[in-house]
């Protein structure tokens, strides 16, 4: 019974972690510019992230250690320092982008400018983290996150031609704007395979006290959860493709994306978009801030855990507090949230080899994982992922320069 609950909650949480500001930004851009042509990029990214999440969960379940913990122990501090530093920078940028997403959602609802909301949002997030337990956070953000299903409903309502959808599910070359096309493709992958996602997942598994018996549950959660999130993201691509693309509206600014749902939901479309974006980004921001705390605490061997009261792990709390303060600075100084998001996605894609490869190496350590170490299928996937991340690392920044708008 407990496992069934874990399964259900795990799926919901994965949905919440998946669909965040990065997905909103990249999927709406993809749909608006190239209609359904980039659905394959989302599918590819989903398959990769399923493997990574499954491995991350399996690792934590068997060893009872989260990734930062295990990587420092296994490879030593000097090796770990590089991924750790990169992960920290990415965490802060992503947090800034997610906070930007929440600020924009509040701006849509209230009409007040984004900058006004930067500190209030940071404080709200902080209160959430200060007072809640891990499960409370996960449960509330995932249940509320179900509102993002409105993208799926809208996508179905628009009745997109199935033939075009299937064609978009296979990779194809663009008829125009190739640099932009590949930039968005890479950004989609960078948005889905967020480094914090599979690091956070391993810490979450330890927080939830998974053991080896959770391996099947973990597999189900990875596949179904990520697939669910992917469906919602594809829904966003479709809606953008049907509503914005024919009108020649590109998403160079979040305001253009906000119009997406007003056709399918005449009276509520605007509000639904705002609420979906707000909740998705809020949930993701909490996860990113926590992820940063986990990473620091585990690296230096501090007491950690969201279930602990703050007076038991003050340094853990200090990290997310500082992270939220720094993260709110981007919006406070008036940076454009969409631009911040796209820069972050490109850097995220570039950073992937550094953060994914250590984990993939660990997955083959039979002394650590015994029978649960990677089998042939997982290793083939791992090898392919390594190649993909290296390619992404090389092309993402040049593409951002050449193909970004």
């Amino acid at each position, binding site marked *: 019974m407990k496992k069934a609950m874990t399964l259900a909650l795990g799926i919901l949480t994965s949905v919440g972690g998946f669909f965040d500001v990065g997905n909103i930004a990249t999927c709406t851009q993809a749909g608006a510019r190239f209609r359904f042509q980039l659905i394959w990029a989302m599918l590819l990214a989903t398959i990769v992230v399923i493997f990574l999440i499954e491995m991350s969960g399996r690792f934590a379940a068997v060893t*009872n250690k989260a990734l930062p913990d295990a990587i420092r*122990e296994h490879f*030593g*501090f000097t090796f770990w320092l590089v991924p750790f530093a990169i992960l920290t920078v990415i965490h802060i940028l992503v947090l800034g982008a997610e906070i930007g997403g929440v600020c924009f959602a509040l701006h849509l609802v209230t009409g007040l400018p984004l900058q006004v909301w930067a500190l209030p949002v940071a404080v709200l997030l902080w209160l959430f983290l200060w007072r809640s337990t891990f499960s409370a956070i996960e449960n509330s953000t995932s249940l509320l996150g179900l509102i993002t299903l409105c993208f799926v409903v809208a996508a179905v309502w628009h009745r997109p031609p199935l033939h075009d959808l299937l064609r978009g599910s296979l990779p194809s070359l663009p008829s125009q704007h190739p640099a932009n096309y590949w930039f968005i493709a890479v950004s989609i992958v960078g948005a889905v395979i967020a480094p914090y996602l599979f690091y956070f997942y391993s810490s979450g598994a330890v927080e939830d006290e998974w053991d080896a018996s959770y391996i099947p549950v973990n597999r189900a959660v990875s596949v179904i959860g990520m697939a669910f999130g992917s469906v919602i993201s594809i829904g966003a691509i479709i809606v953008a493709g049907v509503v914005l693309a024919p009108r020649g509206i590109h998403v160079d600014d979040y305001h253009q994306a906000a119009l997406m749902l007003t056709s399918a939901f005449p009276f509520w479309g605007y509000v639904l978009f705002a609420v979906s974006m707000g909740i998705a980004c809020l949930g993701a921001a909490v996860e990113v801030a926590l992820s940063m705390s986990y990473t620091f605490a585990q690296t230096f061997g*501090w*007491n950690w855990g969201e279930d*602990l009261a*703050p007076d038991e792990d*003050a340094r853990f709390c200090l990290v997310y507090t500082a992270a939220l303060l720094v993260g709110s600075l981007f919006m406070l100084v008036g940076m454009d949230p969409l631009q911040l998001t796209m820069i972050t996605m490109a850097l995220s894609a570039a950073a992937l080899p550094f953060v994914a490869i250590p984990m993939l190496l660990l997955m083959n350590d039979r002394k650590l994982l015994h029978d649960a170490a990677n089998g042939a299928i997982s290793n083939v996937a791992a090898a392919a992922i390594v190649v993909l991340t290296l390619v992404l690392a090389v092309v993402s920044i040049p593409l951002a320069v050449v193909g970004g708008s």
Partner: protein
Amino acid sequence: MKERLDVIRDLLDRQLVDSDETKMGRVDGIVLDIDGDGPPRIDHFELGFAVLARRIHPRIERWLNAIRARWSVRRSARQIVPWAKVVDVTAYEIKVDLKAIDTPAFDWERWLRDHIVAKIPGAGGE
């Protein structure tokens, strides 16, 4: 404890845990005692940012020490955990016969708890 320990694999960078099962830092450095002709013995573990900094580059350690001298609440740059205090070395952690809250490892933790966390409502568990 196993009869043979690999100093790098089993001890370095490992999680230290005190007598209350509280995490008290990692083994950032190991100091051996070389006494005459006999084999080196493990004298003590070292904990601290300064130790880590030294592993990266000695200049970073000097820079960190300068900052620490001015701003830190730490009593010393390096915290020492004598080998004699080690109770057990398992696959997960190294158990030591100390209370973390009493050691310099927890200087920052203690300072934060007393000066900041205690002042904010809701810091205790429910």
